[in-house]
């Protein structure tokens, strides 16, 4: 069941009515069963895996707490991490490694048998596996107590707003929220609804409108002009942002209506002035997860420059691979790791250079933003391309500057509409720095009515109503 579908509208209406008419344990059961219904709507077989992950980490958490011997605790945490990663690895990466192995063997002139299995990738497996795994790690580190109520723990792993595409919530923040019943609150409902509507606008109007143009650029790059493809790359940077942050907005808004608080997942990432900053504003729940459970345990920035660079590269490579079983994702992670390493090396010289040029502060900041944005777009080419060959075609088409004129752009009407939508998005995001719309709309009901109506009209006039899936579901 996806958020932008009629089925979900029926589901959420019924769910909210039941949710606020129930209390205590009944409400907890509703959260669990509703979430399983939501998830099983795709394929009921997915429920087995999430159920197994839940049971395993629930039991291991309790066993770890009972165990007083450090060696046993260590064994248990290794077991939890290994099994979780095995599930993830099997469903997500088996075919990738099997194909890569076969290609490598073929290169040596041997002819191996076909080892590819037709494995269905359970939607959102990367998200709930990381969420569940961090729970056992936190218990091992003695940062949290294990949850003894299985229903509560299962509801924590599977709660539907964030189940399939995050934000990846942490047990220490999220589990305690299940312990108190939140009564219906009109202001909270309105605040959540604003977020949901804004998320829908980003997804249904912006991301889905950009999608066909982008698809054309990456499916037939040799048949299009260089300017057309350049616009396609620019559009993709906003498509993926609006698709994913739109999902996060809907998830955060729905959770707020239910009385839960999720971590923010995006904070205007394309206004970042460095790559380190970018990763504190893009997919925040994943980057902070990787920081806490990978980068810091690897040593973080404590062991000198070279070790720091190694840790950054490793973290970003794994972050790339987390997105999917493809060499292009790995290369995307490699690019982002390299950007951060190079940035750390050249930053002092760059500051000196700006001082020498006597650039006004705003110009220097703008230049930083532009560089970060352009290099991010370059990395997106690899992220979006199914193969390196396609990425190379895209890059060489742009660099050829062949037919680099507006007349060569096909689908100008779609392009114009997309530019308009991006302009609306940027206007809202930039002015939000000053006006803080979320608070303003709570304080001024008239303004709230106008804002809701405007969003409704914009979605009606510019939305794409094919109930297309979210990009991050595949991860």
């Amino acid at each position: 069941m996806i958020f932008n579908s009629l089925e979900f509208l029926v589901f959420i209406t019924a769910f909210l009515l039941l949710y606020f008419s129930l209390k205590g344990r009944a409400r907890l059961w509703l959260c669990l069963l509703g979430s399983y219904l939501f998830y099983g709507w795709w394929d009921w077989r997915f429920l087995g895996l999430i159920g197994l992950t839940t049971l395993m980490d629930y039991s291991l958490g309790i066993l770890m707490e009972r165990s007083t011997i450090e060696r046993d605790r260590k064994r248990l945490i290794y077991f939890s991490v290994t099994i979780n990663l095995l599930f993830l690895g099997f469903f997500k990466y088996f075919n990738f490694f099997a194909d890569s192995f076969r290609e490598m063997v073929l290169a040596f002139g041997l002819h191996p048998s076909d080892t590819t299995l037709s494995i269905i990738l359970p939607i959102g497996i990367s998200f709930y596996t990381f969420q569940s795994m961090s729970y056992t790690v936190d218990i091992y580190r003695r940062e949290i107590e294990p949850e003894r109520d299985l229903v509560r723990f299962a509801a924590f792993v599977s709660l539907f707003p964030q189940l399939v595409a995050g934000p990846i919530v942490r047990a220490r923040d999220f589990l305690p929220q299940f312990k108190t019943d939140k009564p219906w609150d009109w202001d909270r409902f309105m605040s959540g609804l604003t977020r949901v509507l804004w998320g829908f606008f980003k997804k249904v109007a912006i991301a889905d409108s950009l999608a066909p143009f982008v698809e054309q650029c990456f499916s037939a790059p040799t048949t299009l002009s260089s300017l057309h493809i350049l616009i396609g790359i620019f559009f993709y940077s906003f498509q993926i942002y609006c698709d994913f942050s739109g999902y996060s907005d809907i998830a955060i808004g729905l959770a707020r209506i239910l009385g839960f608080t999720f971590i923010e997942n995006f904070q205007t990432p394309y206004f970042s002035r460095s790559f380190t900053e970018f990763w504190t504003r893009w997919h925040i729940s994943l980057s902070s997860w990787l920081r806490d459970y990978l980068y810091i345990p690897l040593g973080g920035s404590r062991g000198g420059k070279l070790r720091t660079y190694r840790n950054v590269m490793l973290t970003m490579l794994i972050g790339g691979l987390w997105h999917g079983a493809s060499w292009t994702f790995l290369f995307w992670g490699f690019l982002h790791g390299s950007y951060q390493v190079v940035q750390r090396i050249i930053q002092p010289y760059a500051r000196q250079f700006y001082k020498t040029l006597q650039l006004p502060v705003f110009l220097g900041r703008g230049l930083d933003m532009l560089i970060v944005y352009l290099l991010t777009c370059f990395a997106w080419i690899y992220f979006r391309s199914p193969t390196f060959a396609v990425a190379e075609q895209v890059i060489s088409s742009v660099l050829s500057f062949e037919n680099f004129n507006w007349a060569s752009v096909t689908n100008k009407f779609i392009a114009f509409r997309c530019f308009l939508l991006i302009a609306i998005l940027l206007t809202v995001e930039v002015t939000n720095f000053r006006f803080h719309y979320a608070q303003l709309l709570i304080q001024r009901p008239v303004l709230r009515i106008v804002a809701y109506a405007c969003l409704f009209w914009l979605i009606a006039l510019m939305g794409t109503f094919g109930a297309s899936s979210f990009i991050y579901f595949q991860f």
Partner: protein
Amino acid sequence: MKHVLWTLALIGFTILGDRLGGAVLHHFVDTSQFRYSRLYNGTAGAQVLFMGNSRGLSFYEPHVRKLTGRTSFNLSYNALPMDLGYTLFQDYLKRNPAPNDLIIEVSMCNKLNKELIMSFGCYAPYSPELAHLINVYDPKMGIAGELISLVRYNSEVFQRALYYLRKSDENWLINRTISPTMIDAMASRKPYGLSIASEDILQNLVKTIKLAHAKNIRVHLVVNPYLPAFAAKLDHLQPWKEQISTATGLPVIDYSNAVQGNEFFTDYQHLNVKGSYQYISLLKRDAIL
């Protein structure tokens, strides 16, 4: 009680804005110079009527006028499928005088296109047939269009109507030349298969021809030119033409390889303005125009 009142105010304001916005946008569609606005306003009368998908845009009206002295009206639109073509033709005849000739570029029988049919929602208030077609393809969107006025104007077709608000669309043909990279890439392309999208689509062509004959309109079925290197890679061309001829009882006049020279093409399948001139000259030579 306060919250209920605010909610009612929100619903009322939203509906009011939707209806008001819908009325304003309908006015734009009504007064536009875009071809379908002219069709539904009854100001599209012409001696020759063209129909096709984006390849049908090669029937460039200024060239037709210059070379033949005849007036023409083009119903073609990018990826226009035959079922929509039939509906538009019906509506044309209801609101405009019948033309002498109808020329159909038959590659429009190769695809179904639900999205485009939905895009014509802004013209649904004019035509029960069009509204019915939308409902057949997507009943939910049909109902949504009835309930929320603005949804009807959520399309590229409406954007074009807005673009041609104060100017004619008779120059609607891309005027550039195919790039050397695209020509080079042709060598590695797989053969391009031609096939009828569905039996229903073919029956819509048959119905169009029957309706035209009932109104004493001469009908010509043509295949417009392809880039020569692309034409060489057309697969199943002959059986495809035969299937159409058998169903309609009319010959399919094949110009797929009639225009030689890459400079006459925008891409593999579309003539540019220069190429259109060549092609229309050929149609005149063959007494089709």
